[in-house]
């Protein structure tokens, strides 16, 4: 696992190095520290193209001269500003650079296609988010506590006796008090039952033994006698049934994890020090032994 995670970091560093070289070699042959500015043909093409994009026509000779002049001006100011250190402590520049680095990490995450084994492992280690809900089919008889007050419990035991009596032929639908909700439910996911009756009720229901009337069970509305007629356990689907969903979740987790890992790896290179011990320092004490040793040498 560890070696797998390291791999993207190597990608990351290689891309970084390549970009650095690219800019060093081709962007401006004279380099930012030099006092020479070389305008390449490529740059002129680029200026022409951006102009054409916004105006729907190429620039005239005169306009091109203007574009080049302002490019030169921009480049000079850019270099002078860098030389004066104006990029330091500028929140926008910092943010933008941070964002570019993060985009690089996202791009790397994007090119990784998970293998079947990786998805299978993800499915198993995150089983709780992919498992289907348990389902219950049930009937219930409602006892209105607000209406019956202290007699509600008595009424509940009386009705439970009637319902449990196999010789009795009274129809449960005719028993109990009125409630707007249906009296009979076909197989329904436990979460849906919770939405209608409240969570405690749904948990009671799922723990009841099928085939016999029990209760009373309390809901947000009052008391219920319940009969579970069918109970289907939740199950973890096969990867093939939900491959697209697992892939989506894997990618979201992978992006996050990669960003964190890259940060952690780079973070290893740094030591954080405080001018004065502060209460905030607590967050920064995770200095590795390797770092401490390195520091000693210096």
């Amino acid at each position, binding site marked *: 696992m560890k070696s797998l995670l390291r791999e993207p970091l190597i990608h990351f560093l290689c891309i970084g190095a390549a970009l650095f070289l690219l800019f060093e070699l081709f962007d401006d042959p004279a380099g930012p520290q030099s006092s020479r500015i070389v305008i390449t043909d490529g740059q002129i093409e680029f200026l022409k193209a951006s102009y054409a994009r916004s105006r729907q026509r190429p620039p005239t000779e005169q306009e091109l001269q203007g574009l080049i002049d302002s490019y030169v001006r921009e480049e000079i100011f850019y270099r002078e500003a860098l030389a004066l250190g104006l990029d330091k402590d500028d929140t*926008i520049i910092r943010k933008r650079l941070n964002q570019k680095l993060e985009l690089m990490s996202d791009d790397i995450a994007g090119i990784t296609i998970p293998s079947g084994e990786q998805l299978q492992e993800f499915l198993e280690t995150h089983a709780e988010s992919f498992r289907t809900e348990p389902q219950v089919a049930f009937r219930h008889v409602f006892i209105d506590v607000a209406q019956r007050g202290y007699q509600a419990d008595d009424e509940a035991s009386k009705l439970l006796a009637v319902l449990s009596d196999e010789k009795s032929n009274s129809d449960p639908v*005719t028993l109990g008090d*009125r*409630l*707007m909700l249906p*009296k009979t439910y076909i197989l329904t996911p436990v*979460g849906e039952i919770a939405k209608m009756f409240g969570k405690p009720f749904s948990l009671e229901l799922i723990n009841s033994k099928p085939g016999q009337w029990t209760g009373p069970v309390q809901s*947000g509305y009052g008391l219920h006698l319940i009969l579970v007629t069918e109970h289907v356990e939740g199950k973890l689907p096969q990867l093939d049934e939900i491959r697209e*969903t697992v892939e989506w979740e894997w990618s*979201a987790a992978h992006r996050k994890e990669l960003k964190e890992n890259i940060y952690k790896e780079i973070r290893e290179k740094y030591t954080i020090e405080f001018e004065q011990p502060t209460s905030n320092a607590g967050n920064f004490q995770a200095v590795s032994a390797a770092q401490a040793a390195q520091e000693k040498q210096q």
Partner: protein
Amino acid sequence: MSIRNNLLKVFFLSLAMMSLPGGAIASDIGSPNLEVIKGLYPGNAYSPYAKRLFPSRVYWGETHLHTGLSLDAGLFGCTLGPEDAYRLARGEEIIASSGQPIKLSRPLDWLAVTDHSDIMGVATDIQNGAPNIMAIPKGKEWAEGFAKGGEAAAKAAFDLISHFSQNKIPEEILKQYSPGSPIYNKVWERIIKAGDHFNDPGHFTALIGFEWTSVPKGFNLHRNVILRDDGIRARQVVPLTTQPPIGTTDPLDLYQWLADYENKTGGQAFALAHNGNMSNGWMFPTVETYAGGKVDKNYVEQRAKWEPLYEVTQIKGDGEAHPYLSPTDEFADYETWEVGNLDITELKKPEMLKREYAREALKIGLALETKLGTNPYKFGMVGATDSHTGLTTAEEENFFGKSTSTEPSATRISHPFVETKLGSYPGYSLAASGYQAVWAMENTREAIFDAMKRKETYATTGPRMLVRFFGGWEFDDNDLRSRTPAFIGYEKGVPMGGDLTKAPKGKAASFMVFALRDPIGANLDRVQIIKGWLDKDGETHEKIYDVAVSDGRTIGANGRCKTPVGNTVDLEAANWTNTIGASELATVWTDPDFDPNVKAFYYTRILEIPTPRWVLYDKVRLGVKIPKEAKLTHQERAYSSPIWYTP
């Protein structure tokens, strides 16, 4: 042979159901015999809910939620996208943009993410100071403000929204973030992908949509657009925007866009408006539209066709009724926002209110129908949050505000939502509202969309109470005692959103209404039926009837119960008890003043007992000082879609 007969019966029954305007059941199949229908009905089967022909469940959700892709939401610090919004709605715990963990008390069943279509995606680029933004002076100014954070960021955001609502966004930004540009297409693709991914038929429905934010001169004429379809169709179009040159603020152009969408893709879509309370008299026009058109035959037909619903309650205030328009309605002054238009560049005048509130619009609609042949304001009721946090929170004790800057904090109450020289919408006046309940056959895009189109929906200000409302000619108290009232409701009448026509001789319209409180919420105070009608002289009227009240209170001969239900709210603990009120209220009510020759509508309003407003939870949990003017308790409510009577 008998199977064939039964099939025939079922066929004719379905015909009857389709055109079932109460007693006026299509006369060409004869008058239905209730006993026959009962025998036919699966209600007598062991599992009556297995093969029903009508919805037996409500599905909760909302049609109005913004994420960081909306320019103002992003500028106010929202970093969540549609993916996060769907995760929270389906019940997952996520981290809000302010860094706080959040989870809903229980999942929603469906959600439409509706980001502003104009310059969608620009917010994140301004936040990050993207090079193309920094190249534009105004863009640079905003980006710098944003980078400074705090107050400066909020100012930048507000300045940007003002520029937007005053049509002054720099042309270069518009061009880069307009439909058709590569940046824009990428954002639309992301919205579609998220919708398709999180749509899980039978469990959770993710609707694809956007907000068409028409706000000329700060007059709120916004419409949300909801698609019935998946990405295959959604990809064939790009959202309509409002900023010139490509966009338009005229609703007639939006109707054309909707028609084009349907013709081009074979899909379906509709629009729904919101916040008439900030339109300064332009939401429900009667003579001229703000865009300069006339309220003529074409306008009323188009509006009726494309706008079946209206969002009646949300964070920026409740728009059902206004105390100025309904002076005898003691519940009308609820979460009222009445200072001016959206950005308070123009103050409200009382004469504007008539064309801003839902109840009044329903009345005006009857008059326009008489004049022009179509009722343009024949809409069903919708509650939504319009939250700009990616978080669909409408519960008082779990309210994450309007924008990221109003996610829970000790200071959110003291920051006004908008403040100008003319006035302000104070921070404590935000309403933690609302959700929409849809009576649909199943939890799929198609079923939920279709239910919305037939207006079988109701709005709540956040709680999830269950409301059934049927109108017909034959309801009596025996129906109430029936053990499966919904069967009787559909057999003998029409549900909310339906029509009654041509009263049978000697009959008055009767209504059956059931309300069951939220299983984890507050008891109910009362059930009301609100009637509006158009008299022979073309004047409109309204009347409120209390039809069922709790705690043995009496309803007077005038149809009202003026005794309040009481108040159990503990202001120190932000708590209440269900020792007053009723968990269920149900009644059959016959209109005592029914006139078969008069056009009318009826809808039900259900009131809860008083409970704490969100500010009280802030006070108790965060130790915040609350201004005197802030209301601490309120009575949350549900509004059903109306049932219309047309002679």
